């Protein structure tokens, strides 16, 4: 009974995101898209202010990287903050609901892809072997790979086609991505270490909030509450 229930829960969680109220989904998609567009616009504006091509390349690389990081961390913080909000007796708004988490996670994957493209075109000069040769590039590429896997398996049809009965466990890989990102940033030539360490530390520390006991109990709550 238990296993059947949990398989149902996995599908339920995914379907909860996909089948949430249309308005919530649309708003989440809009916010995430706006964030991505604004980020790319800001990065473009920052980069175009520098006539020196390597500096422009660097601006694109760094800007898209940090934007991806913000989207990823925001996605990971949706559930803990929802728990906190619920504990405070408030009904979480649409920004703290499952569709928002999903949309932000997908945005993070797209921005990370832009970051990888900017790096390959810029400082790496299409040197694909470097991706495998140096630890910080390897961990960055791996983080992107994980995000893309999670992106692909964020669609109910794909999950059904793959018969992924451990979908929930697969998506918990998202919690390993900040570690890969940290390794990527700490070993990279430019990124500020203090910002990287403090933001990853904050994400994991705030992530513990998800273990706050929920106010509501029961299978119904499990299906409806964000994870």
């Amino acid at each position, binding site marked *: *009974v*238990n*296993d*059947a*229930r*949990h*398989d149902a*829960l996995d599908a339920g969680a995914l379907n909860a995101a996909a089948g949430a109220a249309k308005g919530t989904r649309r708003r989440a998609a809009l916010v995430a898209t706006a964030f991505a567009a604004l980020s790319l616009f800001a990065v473009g504006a920052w980069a175009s202010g520098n006539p*020196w*091509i*390597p*500096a422009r390349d*660097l601006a694109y690389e760094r800007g898209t990287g940090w934007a991806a990081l913000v989207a990823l961390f925001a996605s990971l913080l949706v559930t803990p903050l929802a728990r906190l909000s619920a504990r405070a007796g408030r009904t979480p708004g649409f920004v703290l609901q499952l569709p928002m988490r999903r949309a932000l996670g997908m945005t993070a994957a797209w921005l990370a892809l832009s970051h990888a493209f900017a790096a390959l075109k810029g*400082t*790496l*000069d299409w*040197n694909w*072997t*470097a991706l495998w*040769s*140096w*630890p*910080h590039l*390897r*961990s960055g590429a*791996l983080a992107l*790979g*994980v995000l893309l*896997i999670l992106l692909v398996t964020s669609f109910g049809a794909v999950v059904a086609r*793959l*018969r*992924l*009965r*451990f979908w*929930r*466990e*697969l998506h*918990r*890989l998202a919690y*390993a991505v900040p570690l*890969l990102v940290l*390794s990527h940033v*700490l*070993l*990279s*030539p*430019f990124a*500020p*270490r*203090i910002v990287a*360490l403090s933001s990853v530390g904050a994400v994991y520390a705030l992530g513990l909030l998800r273990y706050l006991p929920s106010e509501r109990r029961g299978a119904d709550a499990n299906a409806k509450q964000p994870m």
Partner: protein
Amino acid sequence: MGVRAIRQLVVIAVALSLWSFAPRPAFWALCVAYVAAVLLLSALDAGRFIGRVPRAAGLVLLAIVLGAGGLGVARAWGAFVEYEGLGGLAERVGDRVRVEMLPAIAPRLVVADRPQTFFVQAQAGEEVSVRFGARGKLLRAREVGGGLFRVEYDPKRDGAPSPADGPLPVEIACGGRRSERTLLAATPLAHPRWLAASPDRARAAAVSEETDELVLVSARGEVRRVGVGDGPTDALFVDAAHVAVAHRDEPALWIVDVRGTGAGPRRVEIGTRQARLALSPSGQRLAVGRGGRAPELVLLDVASAGVAARVALPAAPDWLAFGADDATLIAATRADATLHEFRDAGGTWREIAALPLGRPAVTLARAHDGARLFVAVTDYEPDGRAHLGNHFIQDQILTVDTSPLRVAHSLLTARRSPRQSKPGDVDRGASPLGIAQAQDGALLVAFAGTDEVWRIDASTAEPEMIDVGDAGLYAPHGIAELAGGTLLVSSPATGSLGLFARDAAAPRVVHLAPSDGALLAHNPTALERRLGERDFYEATRAGISCQSCHLHADSDERAHNLGDHRLLPTLSVRGMTGTAPYLRDGSYPRLSDLDHVARMLYRGYLRKTPGRAETMAAFVAALPRRETSSGASGDLARVQRGLRVFERAGCPSCHAPPLFSGLGQHLAAGLFPERAAQLPRDELLDAPSLLSVAAGAPYLSDGRARTLDAVLSQHNRDNRHGDTARLSRDERADLVAFLESL
């Protein structure tokens, strides 16, 4: 434990088990194993199975699988850390965070024996003051521009760092705010190096640059220590009663009356950066070699103490010696590894001959008659070219005729096989650092690499050897013969001098610095440094020591084949603390990792010493950065213009102030696309600190740029190593002036 948690643990356990079969313990293997575990469990429909297994049995099974996986992880952890570049992460992140945390100060080392310049990065326009140690003065910093401040600290004027060794709290006041940063303090102990005997050989003189002392030792072991000016670098007797002392930071050469009459020294103003002295055969002329921005020879008339001539040199002279007469002077310069012979033609000194040696003179001594010089080198090629063997070192003593200037004879002291994987005859005779000629004509040589002294007599086949290490005189540098054939040997690393009398049962050792035991009890940090200094000079079983290429922790300024068939210039190991990771490609995250090179590549050491990696790291960490000649006295307006150009050219992206390095590694081919064909495609370059960059020529990782201007112009054709293409000639000159001021 809920079903959800058990499912998660099962996935982790299966993933860890799969990971233990991975060809490489890596992040990617872990992620692949995790995804594979998810797919496998999904395919097996394991959710149903998990639900049916009795909870207790399931937990036991899970514990077994998790335990096995955990063991696999523990076993592979070291390889995992190495592969993912996580070794020494704390050091490299710590150094970088120190640069990022404003107000930031660099360099990280504070030494008590010399004036130093520090840079602070803070808010632009604020008043910034710095206090070194709790008892130091609050020193006002001067803003160069853009929030970069410069502060001059002279321990003698502003108070010695307190505590003298180890972590040093430094207070930085910016506007009304006070911040504390921790630097590393080092107070060097007495270091007597080269020895000069008096004409009657009744005593010998040495200076200790670190403690500003002239040390006089008689053949009977009586010691007199005389305070002299800042940073004495060399001493010699101009007659039986007077010793000339050269100084690094004091603009005057001192002539000290050593009869004990109480008379003060006679000062001859010739400028700072005095490096080496030589006395002419008649005793009427004294030659002083000077370094700095305009290296030169200064010829003094001893009787009048007046400057008779100044001769410009292309590089600072390491060693000086007169030839057979007062009109012939030979200077050994490191930058071109050449002996230059000068001749006085009616008051004008001209260079009449040059003898390239291929490697710089490590030490040099004059024969009694001046017709020959004895020159120690780490290798010698008659055509003056570099030996192409990997890390090739073959210590030898050249006998050089002074007229005409030519190598007459070569004596190999440590025979090394051409292939370093095969043993040579290197357990003796490594790193000759001190040479003197005995009264009877025999050659006396002190070997720092093998802690021994040789007496080489032409009439006997084998040299007479004395193991001075047995007397605690490790890494001997100086040697002199005193009256009665007594040998005086100096050991700077241990701060001691040893007298080896012919008829004495045991040597007499004079300690100028606390013994190892005293340091262990009261200053273990200084003991660690001392042991590291010994290790630095000690030869490996391959006949090579750190000193072989990094002469006195600096560079031999030669290019060596470092194993990939490319000639690369030797780097200085000074000023490295706080700049992790290390080496050109940043492949060594900790200073202590450098010991790995000696152990793995050079067959280890003869002496088995525990904790060698840590002591060597402590020694290297306490080496101050190389000195540059320009400083506070430079043209401030020009330096400020140069800083603006530095920022406009994008230099701070990689050379971030105040350390002037972001401590990052960059793909070489991306930085220098014009060199991509000659470089390995994945080669990384560690962004070096630009502090003391003026003293670091030649520039760039392979030394292809002779000047800083060449770095910015002809070696940046693709304009990726800074945006220098649109700089005017004047702007480039300003930028170079700024770099030279660091």
